[in-house]
């Protein structure tokens, strides 16, 4: 049943309802694909029995005409979402063996709507990384390779397992989280679609916290339509997350196919970086041309504080992380390393349990929040953040959305940037502004580079205007006709 893993989520949903195949067939095909792709290291835990049991239940519901919106759809879940009775680690040694007794709100919403889980997906440790190389369970391999080369490439991060699994056809969609670009950058590196929703659109309850004022869960899938379908189930108000917003969840799929005639799309001139590759430049121009052809009006806009977003992010995110990760103390959950006294127990547990990047970020965060430095760093960064948000507010007075490249390059080789934190951080230069301002951003695959690797464009919208992004993303997807898929070298 290899053909079943080539379906889009929408096609699978429609095929199930038409009884062309059963949910059990669909899950079996995906379970086989997951097992055959272990070389990608995309999954930390596989849950085939659960998926098969859920599929049987879905088949019964479909037979009775009681199918729910995601009935029988097999998904992958980033291992940052707590899943009841299934190990949840954030890809950290400190949480190895942790088995939540509760379910995150976003995954609970997906199960409520009939979806099932194939397993938990690998990521950068505590979602801190842009290459999925910081995972305690080893790096994820990008399913894509350069033409004529077998050099292993990174899938991006932190949602690298999610991106690899969706791109390789191991699941019909996956959950991701995005703090500085962790959905959009890996989506771009693997030729799939990723949506970072408005802050507060999806509940953060039950998601392992990294930087609470920036974190947001969102869908990753192979098409804009599939992303829209997942988004409707994942979004919604949750009284258990005081920052989740109480407003109706639209039927995002209905936004697709609508005319964009007369819409104004801004091109922020500060995103034209010096030294940007010609290919990224050409892709961006192509995107502009596609939207123009579809009737959109293109307007140049200015976001003057763009260059200050990454430095502000590397103060705010570590500061919040140092506070959030204080809970991993070897006492209430997770791994413990014994010590002579309680302080030594804490220090040994945290020295051994956290990887190098996580330790580095906790220390930076502790420093910028420490007495005497708070105003110079954290407060300053929060003020710069206000200026960045103001930039967007000004731009959105003139335009309905912004179009930018998703990443400054295509996927890079493993080990290429792991020795230089700043070079790694620059991956997020186009995505991080969106998190600081709390806005929605969508990455859409738009073409291949000369080496045959996917490249993506990013659309940025006003708060709660995910529909606008999906509508524009649908136009780009259709114009690009992006149908390329990675060669299944892992089956060889």
């Amino acid at each position, binding site marked *: 049943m290899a053909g079943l893993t080539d379906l889009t989520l929408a096609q699978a949903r429609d095929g199930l309802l038409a009884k062309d195949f059963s949910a059990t067939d669909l899950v079996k095909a995906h379970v086989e694909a997951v097992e055959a792709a272990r070389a990608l290291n995309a999954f930390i835990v596989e849950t085939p029995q659960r998926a098969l049991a859920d599929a049987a239940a879905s088949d019964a519901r479909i037979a009775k005409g009681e199918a729910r919106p995601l009935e029988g759809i097999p998904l992958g879940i980033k291992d940052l979402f707590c899943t009841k009775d299934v190990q949840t680690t954030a890809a950290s040694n400190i949480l190895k063996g942790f*088995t939540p*007794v509760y379910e995150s709100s976003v995954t609970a919403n997906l199960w409520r709507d009939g979806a099932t889980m194939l397993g938990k997906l690998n990521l950068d440790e505590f979602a801190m990384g842009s290459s999925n190389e910081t995972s305690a369970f080893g790096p994820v391999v990008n399913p894509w390779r350069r033409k004529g080369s077998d050099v292993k490439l990174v899938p991006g991060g932190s949602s690298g397992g999610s991106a690899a699994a969706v791109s390789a056809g191991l699941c019909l969609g996956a959950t991701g989280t995005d703090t500085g670009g962790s959905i959009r950058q890996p989506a771009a590196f693997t030729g799939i679609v990723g949506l970072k929703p*408005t*802050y*507060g659109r999806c509940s953060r309850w039950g998601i392992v916290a990294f930087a609470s*004022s*920036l974190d947001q869960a969102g869908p990753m899938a192979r098409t804009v339509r599939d992303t829209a379908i997942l988004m409707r189930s994942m979004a919604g108000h949750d009284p258990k997350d*005081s*920052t989740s*917003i109480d407003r109706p969840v639209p039927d995002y799929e209905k936004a697709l196919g609508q005319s964009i005639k007369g819409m104004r799309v801004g091109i922020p001139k500060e995103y034209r970086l010096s030294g940007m590759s010609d290919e990224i430049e050409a892709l961006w121009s192509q995107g502009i041309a596609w939207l123009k052809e579809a009737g959109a009006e293109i307007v140049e806009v200015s976001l003057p*504080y763009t260059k*200050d977003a*990454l*430095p*502000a992010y*590397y*103060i705010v995110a570590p500061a919040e992380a*140092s506070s959030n990760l*204080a809970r991993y*103390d*070897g*006492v*209430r*959950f*997770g*791994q*413990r390393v*014994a*010590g002579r*006294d*309680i302080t*030594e*127990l*804490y*220090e*040994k547990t*945290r*020295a051994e349990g*956290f990887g190098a990047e996580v330790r*580095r970020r*906790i*220390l*930076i965060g*502790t*420093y910028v929040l*420490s007495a005497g430095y708070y105003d*110079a760093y954290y*407060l*300053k*960064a*929060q*003020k*710069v*953040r*206000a*200026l960045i948000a103001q930039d967007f507010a000004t731009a959105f007075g003139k335009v309905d959305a912004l179009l930018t490249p998703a990443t400054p390059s295509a996927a890079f080789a493993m080990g290429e940037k792991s020795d230089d*934190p*700043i070079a790694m951080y620059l991956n997020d230069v186009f995505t991080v502004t969106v998190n*600081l301002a*709390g806005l929605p951003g969508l990455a859409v695959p738009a073409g291949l580079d000369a080496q045959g690797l996917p490249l993506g464009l990013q659309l940025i919208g006003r708060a709660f205007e995910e529909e606008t992004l999906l509508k524009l993303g649908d136009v780009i997807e259709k114009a690009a006709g992006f149908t390329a898929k990675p060669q299944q070298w892992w089956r060889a």
Partner: protein
Amino acid sequence: MSVDTKTVRKIARLARIGIKDEELEPMAKELNTILHFVEQLDAIDTRDVAPMTSAVEAKLPQRADVVTDGECAQDIVKNAPDHLDTFFTVPKVVE
């Protein structure tokens, strides 16, 4: 601003992350690279800017002050590395 090894030792202590003597120098170097990177913010005039405190303007909701769960002590200690009945255990903290 930059940090020296003494400061690294201090913040590692504050963060309760054990750090070996030979790790102090490389860590100071790594942290200084990042601190140098974020220094560009000093050039921005933020005198009249109010710090951003929430990503999306919203009034924090209030809820009724009532108990919504409980009676789950076994669940709470389930993932503890060591516990006695429904108590977490740690090395002696009072001499």
